C-alpha cells in the first residue's frame, strides 16, 4: 500500500506542523504570557543573598568590625582583596595592628563568597548593587573602609 503510506505521511506531517503552529499562535494571541522585564524602567527584585559586591559594614558611629587579620585576603582565589595595615597606639599605650586601607579590586572579583565565609568577625558582606559599569577601570578599585572610620570597641 504505497499510496496509503504516502498520504499517511502527508497527513501526519501536516498535523504535527499545525500542532506547532497552534502553540506559537497561542502565545501570539496571549500577551499576558510575555515575560520580558523592561529593566531600567522595571527594577528587578533581587534575592537577599544576591552577591553584587563586597562592602564593609559600618555603623552610625562610623565604626567597622575589621581587625585586619587578612583571612579574606588569603581565602580569595583571585587576589581581589589587599589589606594594608598600620599600627595604632591604643588608649592603653599598646601598639595594635589595624587596617589602614581595605583595598577591593572589583574588576578581579568573581563573587564566590569565600571572603565573607572566611571573615571571623563578620566585618564584610555582599551587597546587592550590580550595576558596576564604569568608564574608567581604575574606579573599580575601591577602598572599603570609610575615611576616618575605626574599629568597633571589643572586636578582636
Amino acid at each position, binding site marked *: 500500500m504505497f499510496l496509503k503510506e504516502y498520504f499517511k505521511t*502527508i497527513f501526519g506531517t501536516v498535523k504535527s506542523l499545525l500542532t506547532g503552529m497552534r502553540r*506559537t499562535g497561542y502565545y501570539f494571541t496571549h500577551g499576558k504570557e510575555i*515575560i520580558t522585564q523592561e529593566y531600567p524602567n522595571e527594577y528587578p527584585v533581587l534575592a537577599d543573598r544576591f552577591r553584587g559586591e563586597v562592602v564593609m559594614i559600618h555603623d552610625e558611629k562610623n565604626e567597622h568590625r575589621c581587625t585586619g587579620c587578612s583571612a579574606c585576603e588569603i581565602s580569595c582565589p583571585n587576589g581581589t582583596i589587599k589589606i594594608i595595615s598600620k599600627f595604632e597606639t591604643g588608649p592603653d599605650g599598646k601598639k595594635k595592628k589595624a587596617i589602614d586601607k581595605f583595598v577591593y579590586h572589583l574588576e578581579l572579583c568573581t563573587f564566590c563568597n569565600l571572603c565573607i565565609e572566611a571573615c571571623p568577625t563578620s566585618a564584610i558582606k555582599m551587597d546587592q548593587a550590580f550595576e558596576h559599569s564604569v568608564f574608567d577601570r581604575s574606579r573599580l578599585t575601591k577602598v572599603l573602609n570609610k575615611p576616618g572610620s575605626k574599629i568597633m570597641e571589643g572586636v578582636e
Partner: protein
Amino acid sequence: MWSLSSITDIVQTWLGSTFNPTIALLLQFVMAGLLVITLFAVLGLVLVFMERKVSAYMQVRIGPNRVGPRGYLQTAADTLKLLMKEGLVPAGADKFLFNLAPYVVMISAMLLMAPIAFAKDFQMWDLNIGVLYVSSVSSIAVIGILMAGWSSNNKYSLLGAMRSGAQIVSYELSAGLSIISIVILVGSLKISDIIASQQDGWWIFKGHIPAIIAFVIFLIAVTAETNRAPFDLAEAESELTAGFHTEYSGMRFALFFLAEYANIFIVCAIGATLFLGGWMPFHIGNLQAFNHIMDYIPSSIWFFGKTFFLIFVIMWFRWTFPRLRIDQLLNLEWKYLLPISMFNVLLVTIMAIMKWHF
C-alpha cells in the same frame, strides 16, 4: 466615494490638459516609479517591524520598544544605521558583480509591482499575460543571488547561492502549477480578469478542494521561493552564518533585506489576488445587508488586509518550524508537491470543463 482610482483619474486629466501627451506619459512613468520606490521603503519598514513584533509575541517577549513611541521608529533607526555604515568589499571579490547583485535582486522585485492591482482600478499595467509575467520575472531574482554568492569569494556564500539556485528553480514548478490551476478556472492570464471572476465568491471558496490544495501548495512554494524559513537554506543562519549575503554590509545588505520583504509582499499579493479575490470584498451569498457593509470598506483595505494576512501566515511559519535540509527540501518538492499539484491541475481541468465550480 473617495478611492484611489479617482485620484489617479484626477492626476491623469490634469497632466493631459497641462502637458503634451509625450511629456504627460513620461511624467506618469516617473510618478509611478517614485511611488513604487516609496512603497518599497514603506513596506520594508512596516514588514520588518511586523516581523519583529510577530516573532517577539510568539517568543514571549515584547520586541522593539525603545526607539520612538512603542518602538515604531526602530526600523527607521536601523535603516539609518545601515545607510551610514561602510559598505565593505572583500578582497578577491568580483567587484562589478558584487556591486551589481543587490540591484538585480531589487529590480526584479520592483518589476513585479507592475501588474498588481492594489485597489479597484488602481493598477500600473494591466497586461494580458499578467500572471505569466509575474512567474517569469520572479525567477530573475535567483540570478542576483547566484551573482552575490559567487562574487563574494566566500565559501559560505557560494554554498548558500548554490542551494538557493536549486531551491528556487524547483519550487518555481509547483508555484507555477498552482497558479495555472486558477488560470484554468478563470480562463485568462490577465490580473483584472482574475479579480473580476471572483465577484461572486473567492476562488478558495468556490473552487472546492482542488483550489484549497492549490492554495496550500502555493503558500509552501512561495515560502521556499522567497527564501523564508523553514526554507531559508540560502541564508541558513546556523549553518552558513548568513549564506549568500555573508559578505554584504551597509546599504548593499539593506537592499537584499528590503528585496526579501518586497518579495514576500509581492508573492502574498499574488496569492491574495488569485485565491482570495484581490481587492474584492467578502460577500456571503444573498445576505444583502452584510454584503453592503462589506462594500463600504475601501477596496485598498481589502487588498492590503488579505496580503498582510498571508504575510502573517508566512511569518508564522518562520517562527514555528525548524529548517529543512537541502535534500529534504528537494524531496518535498519533487516527491510531494510536484505530483500533488500535477494531479491537482488535472482535477481542476476536469472541474473547469464540467463547470462544477460555482
